[in-house]
């Protein structure tokens, strides 16, 4: 897991010897079949939700598997017109952006110190941060709730963003440290000779050089925070403060009779995450896999 030499987590380039004779082995059609089956299983639930959102609850109840006939748009338009939906999106965006900014800012500074300064207790300090890798926020949620209550951070979006940032710190430091360490010492010496302070060296040389790793941790932290359910569930009980996952779950219980409306809401709740994903697919997939392959 701990890579001493860190390869930038870009998707592995196709092998250098790419232009090779294209071999049509027996396995190839079988591979395509497998690919189609896997994609089918993945896509069916998503398509079901999106398409059924265009039907009425009555239609869905009489025939669960059918095309919309006629196509009904009111489910979607009423969600899009409701202020609640946009409120949830706004809250989620605020929490995820705040948590991501905090993690990346504090985590990269700490990783810099842990990578390029030698001081007593450095490895111990690193180990303390790494303990956090074992404990996803879920494990600590109940005590965290009590603690946030003491701090007066209940019913406060910062009460969600701060712990989420804290719980993202371990992997942020874990991913960034080897990256910052791999930058050759000669570069630092050269910068110092040119009169740059170490902080200046960090800002002007290390940060631009480690942009891929920074993007990785930012994306990881954003997705984690955007999708979080348990901590917001405990901290935020006023619907005004709901994040999108909380709002989606509560919409389902509130309108449990109106299947079509729930489906439309669920479909729309997927849109921001999926759009972000399609835009940054290479980075996201590369990040997650790159971060894990040591």
């Amino acid at each position: 897991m701990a890579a001493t030499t860190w390869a930038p987590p870009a998707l592995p380039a196709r092998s250098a010897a790419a232009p090779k004779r294209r071999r049509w082995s027996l396995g190839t059609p079988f591979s395509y079949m497998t690919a189609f089956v896997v994609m089918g299983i993945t896509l069916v639930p998503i398509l079901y939700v999106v398409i059924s959102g265009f039907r009425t609850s009555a239609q869905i109840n009489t025939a669960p598997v059918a095309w919309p006939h006629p196509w009904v748009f009111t489910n979607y338009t009423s969600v899009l017109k409701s202020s609640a939906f946009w409120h949830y999106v706004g809250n989620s965006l605020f929490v995820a952006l705040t948590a991501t900014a905090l993690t990346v800012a504090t985590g990269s500074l700490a990783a810099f110190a842990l990578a390029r300064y030698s001081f007593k207790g450095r490895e111990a300090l690193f180990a303390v941060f790494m303990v956090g890798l074992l404990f996803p926020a879920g494990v600590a949620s109940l005590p965290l709730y009590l603690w946030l209550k003491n701090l007066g951070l209940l019913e406060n979006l910062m009460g969600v963003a701060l712990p989420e940032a804290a719980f993202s710190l371990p992997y942020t430091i874990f991913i960034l440290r080897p990256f910052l360490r791999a930058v050759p010492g000669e570069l630092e010496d050269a910068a110092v000779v040119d009169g740059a302070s170490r902080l200046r060296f960090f800002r002007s040389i290390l940060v631009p050089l480690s942009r891929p790793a920074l993007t990785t941790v930012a994306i990881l932290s954003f997705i984690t925070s955007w999708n979080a359910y348990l901590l917001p569930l405990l901290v935020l009980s006023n619907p005004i403060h709901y994040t999108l996952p909380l709002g989606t779950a509560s919409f389902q219980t509130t309108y449990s009779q109106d299947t079509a409306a729930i489906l439309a809401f669920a479909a729309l709740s997927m849109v921001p995450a999926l759009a972000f994903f399609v835009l940054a697919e290479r980075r996201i997939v590369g990040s997650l896999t790159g971060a894990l392959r040591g």
Partner: protein
Amino acid sequence: MATDRATLDQGLASGLPGPTLASPGRTGTVRPAARPGRARRRLELAALIGPALVLFACFVLVPIVIAVRYSLYNWSGYGPLSDFIGLHNYRAALDDPVFRGAILHNFIYAALSVVFQLPISLGTALLLNRKLRGQRVFRLVTFAPYVVSEATTAVIWLLMLQPGGFVDQVMKDMGLGGLVQTWLADIHIVLYTLFVVITWKYIGFGIILFLAGLQGVPVELKEAASLDGATPAQSVRHITLPLLGPTIRIWVFLAVIGSLQLFDLVWIMTLGGPANASDTMITYLIYNGFQSNEFGYGSAAAVILFIICFAFALLYQRFALRRDTAGALTRIVN
């Protein structure tokens, strides 16, 4: 510039100290002046590590410590901590068949993941590890469920699994109507229904992870093996899988830790029911701690969960991940 140089040269020539050129870096090498340099370094370190450490201590370490403290009291979350009861909460939790059941369910999820998801995702990745058209589309589609939130996933599947809903209808249309069950209401089936949903959500991540790992297996090795007369199966068994070892071990680690802290999907789809048949440790502690205002008791359950995760992680680090570049955690133990 030229005049600066000139005055500097003059200064040096005349043996006088240069006007204002004594840079702090230069004087830093002189013994007595080293002190401010060291103080500055300390300050720098504090400024760099301080914010992260405060954030981490405040929201990760402190809650863990207070959980241990609360777990020793009978406490409803209000008023002072006065009713010290020692380890009673722990004994009560471990004696509760529901909590024991919840722990068992977590272990069942972990075992099912390793037994089913690992071969499926690994096998799929091996099959797809060749030049195919539409790789990007495949990655995009397969990975999508991983990005969709657990809450939305839960709501979608909850609706699809309703009696007479999408899943039942599709099974009837395929002539499998006889196999239709009350997926989420049958205490003997609900665990496995949830496992299918979990698999749907996380299998793509495994496939993509293994595909990325397979890119790191040198083609030359496989070619050499086939020249030496190895069958494709042999080459997978003796070359690909060993080289994929680190990726597999990481996947197993993530899958088990993920199974131990399962909550969102279960909570939204079944609330741990029916009759606690799908409870997990976290649904148990949220229900019996948070919702019942038994914060001392809930904290004890949290600490137990915590110890289980910690023990697993340390043992796994020590015995399974040891061969990979030794992780930071191994160093804690040693």
